């Protein structure tokens, strides 16, 4: 799971680089969030040890690609990042059901709320308010599925590392 987490963190970090040109005055925020994701990837790489790939998930990049190509506006880019950040948070909540090593638990627990905050700040920038800022309601999601649904995480079986 740590190798998986490393790979999806690297994927979303690279996403911010790809959409940076559309973010306008929020480009620096995107760069900040990307730096967080790179930090998260480094933490998970340390936990994964020899299993770490130090690469973004190719399967996830392939799945994101058509969505990237369809981006036309700043709002499109923010919406994609908003969905992805929500999915990252849900993935870490899902992982917490399986992790047993204290360091891995601490990493996921310390990273999860940061990614939820990323999502929320992006949602605010999109003009979302109220319940729209909470795609899963009063409890963040802890299940996984396909890309594109902000109410589920990213399924490791669909988007393996490497």
């Amino acid at each position, binding site marked *: 799971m740590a190798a998986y987490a490393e790979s999806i963190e690297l994927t979303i970090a690279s996403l911010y680089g790809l959409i940076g040109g559309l973010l306008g005055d929020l480009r620096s925020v995107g760069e900040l969030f990307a730096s967080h994701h790179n930090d998260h990837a480094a933490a998970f790489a340390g936990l994964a040890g020899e299993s770490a790939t130090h690469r973004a998930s190719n399967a996830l990049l392939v799945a994101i690609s058509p969505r990237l190509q369809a981006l036309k506006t700043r709002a499109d880019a923010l919406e994609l990042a908003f969905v992805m950040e929500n999915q990252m*948070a849900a993935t870490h909540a899902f992982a917490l059901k399986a992790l047993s*090593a204290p360091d891995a638990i601490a990493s996921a627990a310390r990273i999860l709320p940061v990614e939820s905050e990323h999502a929320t700040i992006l949602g605010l920038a999109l003009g979302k308010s109220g319940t729209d800022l909470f795609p899963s309601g009063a409890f963040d999601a802890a299940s996984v599925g396909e890309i594109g649904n902000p109410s589920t995480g990213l399924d490791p079986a669909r988007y393996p590392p490497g």
Partner: protein
Amino acid sequence: MTSPDPLQGESDLSGRRHFLSAAAATVLGALVLPSCTGTSGPPASSPGASLAPSVPGAAAGAPGDVALGRTMASLEALAIAVYDSALNAGQISTPALADVAKLFTDHHRQHLNALEATVGAPRDSTQPNAAVRRAMVDPVFSDPALDESKMLALVFGLENAAAQTYVFAATQLTRPDLRSTLMTIGSVEARHRSILGTVALKRPAPDLIGSGFFRSDNPLPAAALLG
């Protein structure tokens, strides 16, 4: 119809109101404002850490788990009491912010009921956390110059402390399912924090989320952790 003040009852709040200065309240309020993210850097790594599903050996009823669940429930009850009181007294009166406060109150009620079910407590039986109330809430409510901005700083501080306490709890719990459940709540408290920080306190993202890692140390007074 006047709603009862949920912070009254066992409180000595009204009697102390005139003893506390605005300056004191400001200082105490400032104690709770530092960012949850930050200073302690990334977690220590553990190469080759086991990622297999763990056996819930300490499973249901482990004393530490129950105590943490009760503590978190008491923080939820305190948040509900503070938001209800602020809304009823018109201390959060800007319409958009009042709507936010109502939504957050609803979330906290759902969290409280989920936690009470988890620890086996009767629904709505949990009292607001007394130690946190004394440390953070009473000084602000006792401020004769209490206004919306001070109330918003208080609820930001409460959400901030709650979010960090959930992270702390996640590192202490023995049951993986409970750990995940608590963090699906804690991350919503972090969302609350970021909304209040951005919309109400006008803090920019780099100030609000300066680090990629939430702190995991216990931010509460020792007496706030229930046995």
